């Protein structure tokens, strides 16, 4: 009915085991206020939909090309090419493609449809202490929808985690704190200028919001808080940065962070960039080594002075090679 009752959803991942406690359904909202150079979900940055072609599914039947009113699709020796200037994202090709090799990323969904999918795995949430994680992009940018969704999930007794980069309106964030069970809060880079260089925005609002979240939790004894730091080669992966984040946590959030997770860089999103005709600076970047991660985790433990909250996750070079 009203526009704010729908959201642009990028993807829904069931039996997610990496975004909060227990078994979860992670809902990826489209659109982000940052544009991190290493972003693992490049298709999530813009609010607008995006055309993607999956080469491994395509049988080259040209059905898409024949049905495109705008002649936006052509085939070269490298396969399908879309002229993104001409393409109106009308979606005819995705509906006609017999192998579902074309996807328009980002789908409008209403709360009811989303709740139906979420509730299918209720049994697993209950048994695992899991629930739903609202991620993105930046879920809180679609605030009216998200707040309404949070209310509905509260009514149904489903545990909700919000994964945020913190670059959102403080007012919205406060309202979300009232309704969420867990906040997954990203602290990426402490240096203001470096932050701007790598994410497009400085970190004033993010740090200000982090303090606000901390105060809120201190007063209300809830929700739970996990800090997450992506470990990205050259951008975030040096001890100075980690120590600065640790000092910030110690100074502003002491005693209220349940977990500080250092998330190892991975390059699995390489093909996503290719599908979007985007270049990615990290395409040829190696994975971190286990030694590097252990060292950074030590930095983190020393600086935040709460060694038990620190852990690192993800695959490292050593694991992969062997």
């Amino acid at each position: 009915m009203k526009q704010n009752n729908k959201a642009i959803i990028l993807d829904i991942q069931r039996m997610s085991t990496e975004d909060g406690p227990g078994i979860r359904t992670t809902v990826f909202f489209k659109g982000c206020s940052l544009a991190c150079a290493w972003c693992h979900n490049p298709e999530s940055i813009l609010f607008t939909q995006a055309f993607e072609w999956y080469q491994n599914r395509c049988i080259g039947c040209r059905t898409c090309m024949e049905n495109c009113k705008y002649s936006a699709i052509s085939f070269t020796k490298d396969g399908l090419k879309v002229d993104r200037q001409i393409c109106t994202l009308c979606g005819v090709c995705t509906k006609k493609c017999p192998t579902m090799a074309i996807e328009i990323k980002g789908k409008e969904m209403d709360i009811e449809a989303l709740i139906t999918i979420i509730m299918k795995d209720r049994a697993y949430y209950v048994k695992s202490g899991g629930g739903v994680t609202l991620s993105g992009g930046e879920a809180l940018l679609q605030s009216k929808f998200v707040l309404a969704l949070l209310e509905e999930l509260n009514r149904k007794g489903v545990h909700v985690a919000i994964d945020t980069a913190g670059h959102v309106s403080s007012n919205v964030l406060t309202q979300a704190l009232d309704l969420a069970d867990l906040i997954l809060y990203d602290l990426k880079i402490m240096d203001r200028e470096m932050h701007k260089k790598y994410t497009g925005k400085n970190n004033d609002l993010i740090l200000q919001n982090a303090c606000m979240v901390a105060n809120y939790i201190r007063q209300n004894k809830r929700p739970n808080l996990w800090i997450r730091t992506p470990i990205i080669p050259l951008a975030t992966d040096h001890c100075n940065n980690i120590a600065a984040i640790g000092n910030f946590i110690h100074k502003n959030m002491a005693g209220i962070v349940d977990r500080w997770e250092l998330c190892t860089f991975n390059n699995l999103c390489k093909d996503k960039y290719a599908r979007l005709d985007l270049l990615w600076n990290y395409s040829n970047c190696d994975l971190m080594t286990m030694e590097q991660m252990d060292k950074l985790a030590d930095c983190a433990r020393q600086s935040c002075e709460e060694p038990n909250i620190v852990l690192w996750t993800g695959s490292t070079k050593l694991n992969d090679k062997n």
Partner: protein
Amino acid sequence: MRKLSESVKTRKNISNRIQFLIDYYFKGVNRNWSNPFTPFTTDTEWDVIYDETSNYIVPEKYEILDKFKTSFRLSAYPIALPDQFWEKSLVERRSWFIKEAIVNYMPQEILPGDLIAGARFNMMASRCFNEEEACRRNYVVYGPEGVRNREMEFHYRGFGNCTTASGHLIPNHQEVIEKGFKHIYEDLNTKYNLLTEEEKKGQKGNQLRAMINSSTMPRDLAEKYSKLCLEFAQEEEDKDRKNELIQMSTNLKRVPWEGAETFWEAVQSLWFTHMLIMTDENYPGPGVSFGRLDQYLYPYWKKSVNEGMSEEFGKEILKCFWMHCNTAYDATIYEGNNQGISASFGQLLSISGIGRNGIDLSNDLTYAILDVIDDMNPILEPKPSVRLHRNSPDKLLDKVVDMLASSQGAPFLINFDERSMAGLLRQARMANIEHLITPENVYDYASVGCMENTMVGNDRSGTVDNNVYLSKAIELTLGNGNELVLYENKLTHQSFSEELDSPKTGDPNSFKSFEDFYKAFEKQICYIIRRNYELYDALDTHRATFCPTPYLSCLVKGCAEQGKDITQGGAQIRMTTVEGVQFASTVDSLLAVKYLVYDEKLCTMDELIKALKSNWRGFDILHAQAKYRAPKYGRDDDEADAMAEKVMALWSSEVWKYKTTTTNVQFRPGMLSWNYWITTGYFMPALPDGRRQGEYFSNAICPVDGTDTEGPTANVNSVGKALGGRKNGVGDFEDYINYLPNGSSHTMTLSPALLRDKNHKEKFKAFLRGYVENGGTALQINMLDVDMLKDAQKNPENYRNLLVRVTGYNAYFASIGKELQDEIIARESHSRF
């Protein structure tokens, strides 16, 4: 680079004793002696030794049936028959003959260090027919309208296969362990003496006399083994071993004739009782299962531990028992052990599980058995099944998940109590045996073979007797009762050109709606199930007339009471199971017809049929639409899953309508597919869901490979819904519904990353607890990674110990065919295609 094979699970905590037994076993044919089928004959010119009718569910054997038939006869040892042998009834002849062969002809052997006696039990004994019986029987089997010809047509024409399978039951082990065969012997005598003189001369008298004789077979054989132990003890120089042999000799003087008093005796009694069933049936271990091992052995375990037996020694006894179970595979050791020929063993044991009032029954022995499984893995037999339910303790799940994480194929099957019990209570209702399966005793169920649920000690469940290829009904619907391809008898290379007596359900081009199509499909499902019934009924009459198993009849309640052999319907609960094969392929085909022809109108019915007849060649776009765009079962899509439930309700309720004419055995539904979903893929035509001829069908209750794109929880939820889901007020156990009392085999192959650390193991425990709520009855989990498998395919020599499980049975990856290897690799990941 690290050798990949190092990541394969290895055995641990193996003593020198057990290591010797394992090493010796794996010497295979180079052992001094093993346990191959040893044939014995009455030495008459008409003697029949090999009974192929219990082998028809192994189509790979069809080509060598005659070889078996002839070679066993030619190589058989004659046994001197007593006077008046031929004047006795068939069942008495057979009872005498088998006992004579195993006690007085078959050598008794004991391996160094072994704590359990009882080897050399695989036997092909004369069926003991007189000339007239042999003639009559041969006509029933080999005559022009005989069961062999009918079976060949049934299978090679894509309807299914059926057999009167051996085993597949759980005998009353508890009674034998507690009271011994003496008690059975005395009970039989009492019953015999109560017969009238007339009855004594008749069938009942014959049967009871045969059973009385058979009940002394374990006593006489144990006596021989007891003496052998003593002989070995006298020659033994090692003092500890000498004492062990003396103790074994003492054990065998008591059991299995009398009740066991120690754990060692109880296991010895169990092995002897079990082994002789395989002797009696002339078939090694096809689902002759042990039931709730940790429950009925527990009193003995506790007593012996209290009296000073170390837990380690208790486990050592069990490990010897484990090795004995593996010797069943020796049956065709000289013919070569390969899938489809002799991998069809399933000596299954159940541990843990629910008791009355929802109480969990895990005990110290449960955990000791889990240790033994863990230590011995990888090993093929026995097949453990861990029963989980809502109140399973964390301690148990921790162990289960740790073991899953450390081995490639799960070292056990996981059975789920709530859904399983719902099925058995439904069975009680459908078969009018509510006095035999009640809410008070349903907890005592256990699984046989691969994963088939039955009651214990009184139930011939006949699991895997019948395997119906459900997609045949799709083909016949599309062909107005005719076939889309010309089938051929692979033995004679003759085509089946005769028209079928199938219902002519109408030219599909004339169907106005999908509902019309479905109505025709319903009629064809009824037709294929009726055809299955007719063939099985003939086989069942054959077995009831010609193939008594009097020893086995001693171990199943109802036979003595009725004075009937178990093959004649003597058991209290008499079932034969129809296993639905190609389920998801059939459901997806219906969904595809609806989507392609009626909903989206992407093709006409005529075009679809043309596409199928050409095996989709020249129809690439339509093929892709069928395969990728049409809805599928397995994605937790309520509409698609509703179709699955509708088809499940349809075929399963049709099955309940039949009973055999001779033995009054009730047909009941179940779902496992053994390897038929692979082998039938080669000769059955393309299907509307996009499957081409030459590709596999779906396995058991699993979605078609690669279609479960929404992840493991969605896959599980779909399976639960197909079985009937949970519906307030209409469930059979709480609100659980289960159309398939025999159970449904569900295999999932998951990435090891899901179990990589403690945190993830906790999540996986919760996944299993979620399965209790939402899923099916039996889950087989394989933890594999693709690279390892591909390497194993290329370098099998490095992976001889890599064990995988398929539909509930174990196989060494290197020993299975390339098709199945490819299949397992393809299933590795739940990511999209």
